[in-house]
């Protein structure tokens, strides 16, 4: 598979989850695990351009696919506009949910465009749970990030 633009190969047990492969084999520990019920979204990565829960995908199922994690967003040390927007708008406190939030947020903008309305953002963040920030600033950050992504 291709992870953050780099071609990766490895032998894994059939039962290994994609998130385990990313964290334990590749040491890409930005992708988090916050639950065992597929509900929290801390593990969201992009596979072939769309958001998926890497805790609910087998590593072997992503074989040959293009995977992007939070580590793959910044280019030459410059934050992705959505990452910058989370920073600027206090869209995080402890940061645990943030990688998943950012990956989901980019997916939302990719699907709905950079002028996505607030109701859509709130509805589509349904699969991402934050224990500390409260969603207000997260939604604000997604909007700011969406504008910046639009150019």
């Amino acid at each position, binding site marked *: 598979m291709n992870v953050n633009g780099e071609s990766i190969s490895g032998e894994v047990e059939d039962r290994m989850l994609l998130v385990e492969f990313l964290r334990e084999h590749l040491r890409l520990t930005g992708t988090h695990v916050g639950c*065992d019920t597929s509900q929290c979204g801390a593990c969201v990565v992009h596979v072939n351009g769309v958001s998926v829960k890497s805790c609910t*995908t087998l590593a072997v199922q992503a074989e040959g696919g293009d995977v992007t994690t939070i580590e793959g967003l910044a280019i030459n040390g410059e934050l992705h506009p959505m990452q910058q927007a989370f920073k600027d708008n206090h869209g995080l406190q402890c940061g645990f949910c943030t990688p998943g939030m950012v990956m989901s947020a980019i997916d939302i903008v990719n699907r709905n465009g950079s002028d996505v309305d607030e109701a859509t953002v709130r509805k589509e963040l*349904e699969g991402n749970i934050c224990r500390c920030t409260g969603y207000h600033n997260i939604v604000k950050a997604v909007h700011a990030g969406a504008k910046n992504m639009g150019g």
Partner: protein
Amino acid sequence: MYNFSYQKVSSIADAVDAIQKAEDGKFVAGGQTMLPTMKHRLASPSDVIDLGGIDELKGISVDGDTVTIGAMTTHAEVAASSDVQGAIPALANLAGNIGDPAVRNRGTLGGSIANNDPAADYPAAVIGLGATVKTNKREISGDEFFTGMFETALEDDEVITAVLFPKADASAYMKFENPASRYAIVGVFVASSGGAVKVGVTGATACAHRGMRLEEALNGNFTADAVDGVEIPIEKMNSDIHASAEYRAHLVKVMTKRAVEACS
């Protein structure tokens, strides 16, 4: 999760062959129900046979009055399909409200109906629209497909290939959702075609079923008021921490009324 042997197949014949050879094999589609169940060790198949590489199970086509959706079509694809939006907007809307975007990007129509969760959304549409489930062996009507809680008419080596949804003159789906998972506490799909009304109810009982009493009341008087006089028996209603049997019975009527209103 206990270990298993994973196999990705590229044809229906290979999938059937693989499951027949396996000691205790299971198909996996989107994995959005299978993998959580296996992580909790509530299921531990010896072999997992991935249907994701079978192209003939994917895709949406409209032919006359029938919308055919391949079993491996994801919820996100159904929601975004202009064909489905045009032919049966309520179905696109239903798919777009299952779980969350990441679940919709992997979860499939075939997986949803094969799993037959009592609170799943698609079964209400299969029943409400009078759809037909196509497998590698036969065609099964929606009314006969769902047989009990997590139980269907499927045999162990039977693969759902597609679901054939007839267009309706008007249809709507209303669900009262669990705020955590977005599964239906009660969901009602109402469809009206050529004056005949069908009602598919999910979330309320062991599995999705036709709301016969509601249909009776609505045939000939397709208005929300017609629902008022219907008595919903509570004996078979689910009762759990989310909602009591009485509350669910009440919700069946409220969701039906909202769906009828949305049809007009």
